[in-house]
C-alpha cells in the first residue's frame, strides 16, 4: 500500500527524517510513536503527499510519489483517509455537507453516498449533529466527524495523526475502537501518537506493530506490541 525506502526529509537545511524504511501492507495496523517534534507528523505527511521526500523513495499504491502530478495525488488521496489532531473543515458548511465533500469533489453521485453518510454518522455517534456547523462541535465530535469524512469514500488506508490529542480519555478509547473495527474490516491503519497508554489499551484488541521514531529514524520498527 505505502512503502518508504531510505526516505528522508529536510527543511531549511536541517534533516527531520533520515533513512526511514516503512512498509504498510494491506490490512496492517501500525502505531507510530515518539516524542513531540520527532517527525511523526512529517512522516504522516510524506505518506499522503502533503510533503515530498528529500531523499530515498516513497511508493503509494505502487506509484513513485516523485512522478505524480497534482491530479495523481488528488486521486491517491481519495484512497487514503486522513484524520488530523486539529481537523479542518469547511466551517460554513454543515457537518453532513462536510462529510459528503469527498464524494462531491470526486464527482460521485451524492444520492448514492447519502445512505453511507447517515450510516457513518450513526456509527460515530453524530446523527443529532448532522446539521451543525463545525465550529459548533466539541473536540471529540470534530475528531469523529473527521473520521466519518475520511471514510465516506471507503479508503484503503487510514492515517490518523494524534487522533486522540484533543479529546478526553474516554473519547480517545472510543476513537481507537472505531479504528480497530475498521482494521477488522480490512483497512490499513497507521496511527501517530505519543500516548503510550492508548497503545497499551489497543494491545488485547488488535495485532498492531509499534514504530518508534528516534534521532530522525525508525528505531524499533516491527516490534510487536
Amino acid at each position, binding site marked *: 500500500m505505502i512503502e518508504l525506502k531510505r526516505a528522508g526529509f529536510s527543511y531549511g537545511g536541517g534533516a527531520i527524517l533520515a533513512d526511514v524504511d516503512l512498509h504498510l501492507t494491506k490490512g496492517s495496523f501500525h502505531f507510530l510513536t515518539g516524542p513531540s517534534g520527532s517527525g511523526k507528523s512529517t512522516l504522516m505527511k510524506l505518506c*499522503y503527499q*502533503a*510533503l515530498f521526500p528529500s531523499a530515498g523513495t516513497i511508493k503509494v499504491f505502487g506509484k513513485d510519489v516523485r512522478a505524480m502530478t*497534482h*491530479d495523481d495525488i488528488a486521486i491517491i488521496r481519495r484512497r487514503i483517509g486522513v484524520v488530523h489532531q486539529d481537523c479542518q473543515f*469547511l466551517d*460554513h458548511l454543515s457537518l453532513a455537507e462536510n462529510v459528503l465533500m*469527498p464524494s*462531491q*469533489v470526486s464527482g460521485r453521485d451524492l444520492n448514492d453516498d447519502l445512505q453511507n453518510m447517515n450510516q457513518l454518522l450513526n456509527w460515530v455517534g453524530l446523527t443529532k449533529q448532522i446539521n451543525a456547523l463545525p465550529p459548533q462541535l466539541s473536540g471529540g465530535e470534530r475528531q469523529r466527524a473527521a473520521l466519518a469524512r475520511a471514510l465516506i469514500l471507503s479508503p484503503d488506508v487510514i492515517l490518523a495523526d494524534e487522533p486522540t490529542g484533543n479529546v478526553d480519555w474516554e473519547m480517545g478509547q472510543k476513537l481507537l475502537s472505531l479504528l480497530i473495527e475498521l482494521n477488522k474490516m480490512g483497512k490499513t491503519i497507521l496511527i501517530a501518537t505519543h500516548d503510550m497508554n492508548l497503545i497499551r489499551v489497543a494491545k488485547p484488541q488488535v495485532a498492531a506493530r509499534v514504530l518508534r521514531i528516534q534521532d530522525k529514524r525508525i528505531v524499533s520498527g516491527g516490534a510487536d506490541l
Partner: protein
Amino acid sequence: MNKILRYWQLAQDMLSGDQNADRVVPPSGYTASLTTFVSFAMAFLTVFALALFLATGRLADRWSTELAGTSTVRISAPDGQMDAQAKTVLGILETTPGIASARLMSEDEQRRLLTPWFGVDLPMDNLPIPSLIEITEEGVGPDVNGLRLRLQAEAPGAILDDHTRWRRPMVKAAQRLRLLGALSIGLIVGSTIAMITLAAQAALSANGQVISVLRLIGARDNYIAKAFVRRFTIRAFLGGLIGSLLAMLFIYFLPAVAEEGAFLTGLGFQGVQWLLPLFIPLVAATIAFVSTRFAANSKLQRTA
C-alpha cells in the same frame, strides 16, 4: 481551431453550474464586493472612453472631408481696386483646372460668418473687411503653388487659403484625442486585469483553509480553481453589465447643446454603435475568467 475549441470547452467546464461546488468557497468577504465594484467602475469608464474614441474619430473624419474639397481666396486691396481684383481673380479661377466653381461671397454671408465672434450689430461698412471668394474643387484640385504665383502676379491683394494650414492641426488634434480614448481603454483593461488578479489572489489567500481541506479530501486543482473562477467571472459580468448600462444611460441623456458645441453633442454613439458597450460586460467576464484562472493555477501550483 482545435485550440479555440479546447479553450471553449475549458470555459464551459469552468462556468458550468454546480450548486454544490459553488458553495465550497464561503460566500462572504471583501473580495466579493471589490470585484463587482472594480468591474462596475471600469465598465462605466470604458463606455465613456469608447464614446470619446468614436466621437473623435467621427470629428476627425468630418473635419477632414468637409474642408478637403474647398478653399478660399481672400482679397485685401484699397477700396478702388477691390472689385477689379475680385473680377480678375474670378477670371483666373474660371480657367484654372481642378476648380469646379468659384463664387464671390456677399456682404450678408460674410456678416453671418463673423456674427459668432462680433455679434449681430457688426458695422461692416466701417471695417476693412476683405472680399472672400469660395472655391469648390474637383478631382485632385488645382495646382496650389502655381495658382498662388498667378494670383500674386495678376491680383497682388489676393491670397489663396486652401485650409491645410489649420485643417491639419485640427485633424491631428482630433486624432490625438482618439488615441487618448484608445489609450484610456487600454489602461482601463490593464487596471481591471491587475485589480481582479489581486482580488482573486486575496480571495485565494483568505481561503487557504478551504484549499487545504479540499486538497486533503482529494479535490483536483481544476475543481478548486473552478469554484473561484466561476464566482469571479459572474461577479465581473454583473458589475460590468450594471456599469455599462448606467454609463449608456448617462450618455443617452447628455444635454443637447447647440450647433456651436458640436464636439460635446458628438460625444456618444450613433446607430449600431450603441451595441458596442454591451460587449464590455463580456470583456470584463473574460478578463476575470483569465485573471482568476491564472491566479488560482499559480497559487495551486505553489501549494502541495
